[in-house]
C-alpha cells in the first residue's frame, strides 16, 4: 500500500530580491518593496511530502524521527534565522521563494534516502505558496 506523508516545518529568514543582471530601475520595477536594500523577513512554512510503501512491520512510510532529523540538520539549520542573500546557494541566484523551494527540494533529493521525495511546498506568507516536484507531476 502506497501512502503519501506530509510534514510541516517552520523557519524565519530575511532576504532582498535584487538581480545583478538588471538596472536599479528594472530591479525596482520588478521587485517593488522586496528590492529594499536593507532586506526584509518572512516566517516560512515548509511542507515536505514523501511517499512509499507502508511497511507492515512498522505501519510507516518512513520513521518521522529520520525525516525530522534530516530536515532539522540539513534545511532548518542552514536557513533558519539567516539572511538568505549571504548564503552560498544565493550568491548568484535571487532568493525568491521559487528558488528557495528548488534549493530545499535539491537538498532533500540528494540527501534523504529513507523514502521517495514527492514534493516540497513552501509558504512565504499565509497568502502565497510554491510547490516543486523536481519537474514531476504534483498529485492532488
Amino acid at each position, binding site marked *: *500500500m502506497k501512502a503519501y*506523508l506530509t510534514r510541516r516545518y517552520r523557519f524565519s529568514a530575511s532576504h532582498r530580491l535584487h538581480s545583478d543582471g538588471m538596472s536599479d530601475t528594472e530591479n525596482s520595477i520588478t521587485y517593488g518593496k522586496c528590492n529594499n536594500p536593507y532586506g526584509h523577513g518572512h516566517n516560512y512554512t515548509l511542507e515536505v511530502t514523501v511517499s512509499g510503501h*507502508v511497511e507492515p512491520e*512498522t505501519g*510507516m512510510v518512513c*520513521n518521522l524521527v529520520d525525516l525530522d532529523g534530516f530536515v532539522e540538520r540539513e534545511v532548518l539549520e542552514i536557513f533558519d534565522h539567516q539572511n538568505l542573500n549571504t548564503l552560498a546557494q544565493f550568491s548568484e541566484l535571487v532568493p525568491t521563494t521559487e528558488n528557495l523551494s528548488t534549493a530545499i527540494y535539491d537538498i532533500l533529493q540528494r540527501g534523504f534516502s529513507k523514502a521517495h521525495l514527492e514534493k516540497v511546498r513552501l509558504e512565504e506568507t499565509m497568502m502565497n505558496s510554491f510547490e516543486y516536484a523536481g519537474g514531476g507531476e504534483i498529485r492532488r
Partner: protein
Amino acid sequence: MLYLTRKAEFSASHYYHNPKFTPEENQRIFGKCNNPNGHGHNYTLEVTVKGEVDPRSGFVVDLKDLKEVLNREVLDAMDHRFLNKEVPEFFDRIPTTENLAISIWQRLVPKLQAAHLHRVRVYETPDLFVDFYGEE
C-alpha cells in the same frame, strides 16, 4: 470531473507496538509512541470524492449522504476510542496515521455508491498528515 471534500474531526488514543519486536526495538523505533497506556490526538479527516455534476441536482454527491456514511463508518467507530483496543483492524495492525488513512479508505469504498472516492487525508496534528489514494 469535479472534486468535493468533506472534513470531519475525531479524537482518539493509540500507541505503537509490534509484538514481533523486542521491548528495546519497540522503544527505539516508536519512541514515545510506544507507551502502552496510549496517548491521544485530535484528528482531522478530509475525504475527497470525484464525479460529474448531476444536471438535475447540481451535486456531485448529496453531502447529507456522504456525511452519514462518514459518521457511521468512521466517526462512530473511532471517535473517543482507543484505536488499538476498540477498532478491529488495529488489533493486529499498528494504528499509525498511514494505516489510519488506509483503514478509513477501506471502510468507505464499499459504502459510497454515487461518489467515487479520490483521496483520504488524515491529519494527526496540523503539522503531520497522510494521503491515501487507494492501491496503486
